[in-house]
């Protein structure tokens, strides 16, 4: 039985065969295929030192970065539309909840890593501006009887609506940044934004620069998550906060099954119909399954040096917001 099967695989797979060789961790393959006849050494359960996962595929670490880049290059233009379609608009609520948790004050220096299309950054700016407007309204109510001097002074002082707040949007992918920049100009965000091309594992910033570091739906695509966490620790000021919004493990078994069904059956189809790209969205749902659970990720954040690390699961654990402080 084994010989004909391997012949079939060999003749049909070609390229797929080399993928099989690298992904033979699962026990099922170990017993059924004769290693000797094909001259291949199976890897059993241990992974190679420089191997990592790309969705459910196993690739070398050098390859993963390039492949992730290609995925985001091809999805960039339809990224926002697809997010809305896949999450039925719920991703907006998740991102809003991240901002509510963050509760930034005017004057905050925010670093938004993997923030390509700018969702978090724009929400941050809107939040600060809304705060500023509320403050102005309160001031107006309190100051109903001003002297003429004070009124004249008010016309002269041009108060910065952002109060010195600034957001640095860093992304490794040029296409995503381009889409984000276009969105910014469409929505009218001019001040308080800077766009930087950079790698989360090696940020192009000095130490102790930012008050808040956020990474929304980006950290699972990073090849070395621990390095990204260490970089986050480095660039934050003492007292700074690390916030991560990411897909996580669903805690409810029924919802987990429905979620799996939806993820594997519907999402790649949506990707094909709307964006013309099945494989990128297959990678997306697989990479979500590969990401560590809430507790494991919390431990990774603690290992990087953060303290008071907490997490909050949203929508039964489909996403989780992890928060840590550099003290």
């Amino acid at each position, binding site marked *: 039985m084994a010989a004909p099967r391997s012949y079939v695989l060999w003749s049909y797979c070609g390229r797929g065969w080399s993928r099989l060789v690298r992904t033979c961790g699962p026990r*099922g393959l170990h017993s059924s295929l004769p290693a000797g006849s094909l001259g291949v050494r199976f890897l059993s359960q241990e992974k190679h030192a420089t191997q990592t996962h790309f969705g459910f595929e196993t690739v070398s670490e050098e390859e993963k970065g390039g492949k992730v880049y290609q995925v985001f290059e091809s999805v960039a233009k339809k990224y926002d539309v697809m997010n809305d379609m896949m999450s039925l608009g719920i991703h907006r609520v998740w991102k809003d909840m991240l901002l509510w948790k963050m509760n930034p004050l005017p004057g905050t220096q925010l670093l938004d890593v993997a923030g390509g299309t700018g969702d978090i950054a724009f929400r941050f700016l809107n939040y600060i501006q809304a705060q500023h407007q509320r403050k102005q309204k309160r001031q107006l109510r309190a100051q109903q009887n001003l002297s003429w001097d004070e009124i004249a002074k008010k016309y002269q002082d041009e108060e910065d609506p952002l109060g010195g707040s600034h957001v640095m949007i860093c992304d490794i992918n040029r296409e995503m940044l381009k889409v984000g920049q276009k969105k910014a100009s469409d929505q009218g965000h001019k001040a308080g934004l800077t766009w930087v091309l950079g790698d989360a594992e090696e940020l192009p910033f000095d130490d102790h620069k930012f008050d808040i570091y956020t990474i929304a739906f980006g950290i699972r695509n990073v090849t070395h998550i621990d390095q990204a966490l260490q970089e986050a620790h480095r660039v934050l000021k003492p007292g700074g906060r690390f916030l991560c919004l990411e897909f996580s493990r669903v805690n409810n078994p029924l919802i987990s099954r429905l979620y799996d069904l939806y993820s594997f059956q519907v999402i790649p189809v949506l990707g094909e119909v709307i964006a013309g790209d099945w494989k990128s969205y297959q990678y997306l749902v697989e990479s979500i399954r590969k990401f560590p659970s809430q507790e494991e990720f919390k431990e990774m954040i603690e290992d990087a040096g953060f303290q008071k690390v907490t997490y909050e699961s949203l929508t039964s654990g489909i996403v989780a917001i992890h928060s840590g402080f550099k003290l």
Partner: protein
Amino acid sequence: PLWRSVLRELWDINFAPLTVRQTSAAMTTLWLRVSLLYPDHIPTSPLQKALLAAGSAGMALYDPYRHDMVAVLGETTGFYTLKVLRDQMRRDPEGTQILQERPRISLATLDMDKLRSLPEGSFGREYLRFLDVNRVSPDTRVPTRFVDDEELAYVIQRYREVHDMLHTLLGMPTNILGEIVVKWFEAVQTGLPMCVLGALFGPVRLSARKLHVLVSELIPWAVHNGHRAPCVLNLYYERRWEQPLAALRKELGITAVPPCMQGLA
């Protein structure tokens, strides 16, 4: 065959993920990836095929420039029709040759200079003229991905690549009217659900005048010729470049192009 039973077993697992845990989902995906039947193959469960068919049909109607959606619709709905087509090809000697040799039509396999040097009125020269006048290229076809049989994947790929030949044979340009006429011809010839759907729903966006022309002259002509002609997939077009187009049309029983469309292709 072995791979078919493996595939069927995997489809069952994949279609009922309610009984599958996460590690098994990974295993299933791994096995599906391993059981690729051809390089671009993406194995899909029946549910995914149904969703794809519905989604691609809707998207193709919404945005007619999404040719890849038309292709996906064809692949997901045409499995049984492709079997009938493949059997038809097997019964014909030229068709069997095509199935065995699997010729592909692309810029890499076509000898453009040789085609250009052919005499006027020959099939190859007219085909090249069609490509130039309508500014199309044989390389814009998406590869087959969702057909779960390697030979049928080739049959549908051949059907797509032969589409341009049909334009030349029928003398139809690549505007919307011409495409609908060719779709009607193909629907009658192949019976592919995608062709039938395209033929029925394509005219939805036409103006009343064009619709009148279509219904009164072009569709009857296309249907009549579609019935008369033998299976167009059985022609080894690559060996017929030198054959005069008129002779080829006579062989297939294709009558003169209707006057409203003459000289456009």
